[in-house]
């Protein structure tokens, strides 16, 4: 089965609204990373998390290693937030082989 499960698979947001993406792990994730793949295909590193929370502008992420999930909150969505959001966690003991979720495709509408 999927080691890293993302939900929802797709999301359509009105500009200015808030939403949350979720990642559930069936592996013993010690860290989690969130990436945004923009419409041009480039991967942008959003967050690297140990258990806890981080905030960067309108984005906030939390990681609970005991309950094996992570969330990414988007506040006041803007058109440039459109893209596919991926979460990833290391799946080897060295911590350098990332297993990705299937992604959440986000479309922000004006």
């Amino acid at each position, binding site marked *: 089965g999927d080691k890293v499960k993302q939900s929802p698979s797709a999301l359509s947001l009105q500009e200015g609204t808030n939403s949350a993406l979720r990642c559930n792990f069936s592996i013993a994730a010690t*860290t989690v*990373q969130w*990436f945004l793949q923009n419409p*041009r*295909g*480039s*991967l942008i*590193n959003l967050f*690297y998390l140990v258990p806890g929370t981080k905030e960067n502008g309108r984005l906030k992420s939390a990681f609970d290693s005991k309950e094996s999930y992570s969330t990414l909150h988007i506040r006041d969505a803007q058109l440039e937030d459109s893209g596919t959001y*991926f979460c*990833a966690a*290391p799946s*080897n003991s*060295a*911590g*350098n*082989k*990332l*297993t*990705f*979720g*299937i*992604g959440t495709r986000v479309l922000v509408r004006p």
Partner: protein
Amino acid sequence: GPKVLQIPSHQIIDMGQMVTLNCDPVSNHLYFYWYKQILGQQMEFLVNFYNGKVMEKSKLFKDQFSVERPDGSYFTLKIQPTALEDSAVYFCASSLEAGGSDYTFGSGTRLLVI
């Protein structure tokens, strides 16, 4: 911030030919990676490389694939011979430490095998 550069950004190649994808990692990074993304799907780990050696590879890293970084130059992924199913976007990444927070991806090479 520091960047990983991938050359070329696009490549079209005839099935059976050889292709080399080039990656210029972040200058002080020590760990290098290749990932494969088939159109619109999730990223899949191919291989990681450290100190001149392959450390780990996945089932997707077929016998036709090889990686090297001769003398600290480009980190390369070579596919010989190519097959139709090799068509994908190949992302290179690098990090200073294993599992580091500085895991940095390039913009990808879009490979089309025809």
